[in-house]
């Protein structure tokens, strides 16, 4: 099979690292060679976070080649736009409808991108864009912190790996007392995408 290239982006604290861990582990469980690379750097201080994940027969580089992202999973609008040029025209963008304003915006030195302009860029860039209200969905489940699993659930609906594989990988990676909540979060994301696919 052709290598599948994923990119996950967001803001430190949103739970992107667990999402990229799960995505990589699911690839391995499904029998692919997998490589993953996270830029952690200063992300814990509210910086941007970026993860590359690749599934394939044999994957050499852990970095997705320039402009060849198949699936961009953006936890935040500005960070999604920042990586949009990495997605090829036939790729898919799944973008959480959440704005987290950087200090340059709150201090009035810069403006947060206008929503219409953002949507136009998204529509020009790729064939398929899903604007997912992930934070609201997580809050409806009673815990904003499961945002990452809601988004992973949605992404799973676009990929040829059985939901049972996803759920078993997920179950191994979250504390036992949150397992049931996380499974519900995963299913809510997956149902959301299945209604729109």
């Amino acid at each position, binding site marked *: 099979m052709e290598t599948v290239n994923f990119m996950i982006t967001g803001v430190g604290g949103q739970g992107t690292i667990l999402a990229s861990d799960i995505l990589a582990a699911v690839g391995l469980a499904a029998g692919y060679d997998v490589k993953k690379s996270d830029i952690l750097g200063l992300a814990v201080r509210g910086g941007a976070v970026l993860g590359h994940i690749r599934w394939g027969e044999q994957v050499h580089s852990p970095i997705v*080649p320039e402009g060849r992202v198949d699936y961009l999973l953006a936890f935040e609008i500005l960070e999604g736009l920042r990586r949009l040029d990495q997605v090829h025209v036939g790729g898919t963008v799944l973008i959480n409808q959440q704005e987290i304003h950087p200090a340059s915006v709150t201090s009035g030195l810069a403006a947060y991108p206008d929503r219409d302009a953002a949507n136009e860029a998204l529509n020009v860039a790729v064939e398929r864009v899903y604007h997912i209200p992930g934070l609201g969905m997580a809050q409806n489940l009673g815990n904003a912190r499961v945002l990452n699993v809601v988004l992973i659930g949605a992404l799973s609906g676009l990929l040829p790996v059985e939901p049972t594989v996803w759920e078993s990988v997920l179950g191994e990676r979250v504390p036992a007392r949150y397992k049931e909540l996380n499974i519900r979060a995963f299913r809510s994301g997956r149902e959301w995408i299945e209604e729109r696919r």
Partner: protein
Amino acid sequence: MKLLSGNEAIARGAYEYGVQVATGYPGTPSSEIMENVARYDEIYAEWSTNEKVAMDTAIGACYAGKRAMVAMKSVGMNVAADSFFYAVYTGVRGGLVIVAADDPGMFSSQNEQDNRQYGRFAKMPVLEPSDSQESKDFVGAALELSEQWDTPVLLRTVMRISHSASPVELGERTADDAAPTPPLKRDPHRLVCTCVWAKHQHPLIEERLKKLAEFANSYPLNRLEWGERKLGIVAAGAVYNYAREIFPQASFLKLGMSYPLPPALIRELAEGVEQLLVIEELDPFFEEQIKAMGIACRGKDVFPAYGELTPAVIEKLAAEAGLLPPEAVSEERQLPLPELPGRSPIFCPGCPHRSTFYALGNKMKDVIVAGGIGCYNLGALPPFDATDTMGAMGASIGVAHGFDVAGIPDRFTAVIGDSSFFHAGIPPLLNIVHNGSNANVVILDNQTTAMTGHQDHPGIGENLRGERAPKVEIEALVRACGVSDVHKVNAFDVKAVQQTFEKALAFDGPSVVIVEGPCFFVGPGASGAYEVDTDACIACGACFRLGCPAIVRSDEVNAKTGKPKAKIDPVLCVGCDMCAQVCTSDAIHPLE
């Protein structure tokens, strides 16, 4: 098969290949190595006070016959250098692997040094893994080499190896952990590096390097991979995998041992191909040695000696140099994107450092600030713009002393974190006392090594093994160093912080202010969010100057000035109270 990051795989390697003592000092991108080693009860693991102490500790354990590992980030090697240089002379008995995680691209370091140079400089072998499986395997290879050749071995990774994950085949631990440690075998002629004895070692070390180069020719970690004969590529580490993907048809010399180089393999590749290309991140380390062998190759005429050599960079520059057809390079996409503001890191809500830089960046702008490594370096960025210098761990105190002896007319202070103070702040503090400096030092005691992920240090009362440890009091330590003017202030009392700085700066002689307040992540936790009374807010902007992510611009403005009023994000606010203290119109209160 398990998916492990390079750092996790190195820790696993320490476990499987019988490391019994592991030491280190935290630093991105290396910190997770020791954090993972500490999970194996069979290995004694510690965060040492600095990299040199970690190195000496591991060397001592090796003299006692144990296998040992020392882990640190790129610049940690500079601190440790004094010690691994002597270990090359004394030899090691038990295997010693030094892990250094370099940071090409400078994601979180103050320089972009290439630690392969330390292998050549100190005359010890260097291994470089290309993925997580090799990260684990090479720990074993390094320990074997170390024991076979009686030398420390450097295992050099880069951020992309340390922080990338790939499948790893797991094995069992091989050490006999129950065996008692025998009494130390004394051998002063080897272990005492006095000049009269050590000079006999140097010719042997030169001889060893020659033999190692010969050995490298048949070392299985170095391999020739024949493809088409047009282009031959020499590569190691992360870059090897990028190159394999970009030049699938080329012939390769994949180097697992980056020093000493295998001369016969290099000649064989060079003679078997039309053109030889060296792809290496940072310094022309291979290239210069290959050229010195009289072999023509291309390298830094194509690729820069700085920055990360990502696949995108390699592809583009190789095409420009005619080594790839132009159509192999994907075009940069031109999208109608709106302007995208950057996202720089910022002090967290509830950060104790905020009051220090609010004082130095607003109320005491005249004060020159010598800074250091840690979260508090964010004081150099807006809205504070307070820090004037920053170079290395512990540097601030010496630099401030330099300002004093140079006689600058400005007021000046040194700022240093608690972990940095234990790491490298005590000798320069003694120095300012001894030399009668007028330097002022601010120690930001947030009770953790925050920037690298909240590791322990001697001021905490607990160590990496989870044992209770004596909590070293910074005040007592500072007084013991001979400083008489010592102040302590609560970091969350904004006005008191500034007043204490003023008092200490006015003192004639060395003075120290200890600003006490735990990092939010190790402190008591959130204590209820605050809110802005928009009617009372006059949009003076004082709270914005705290640079708190929880304080944002409201849509409401002051009708007279047109300036935006403040509002507080109740999800982010942790109730530290600093904004209520700086508010000029008493408009900020705990949320009802």
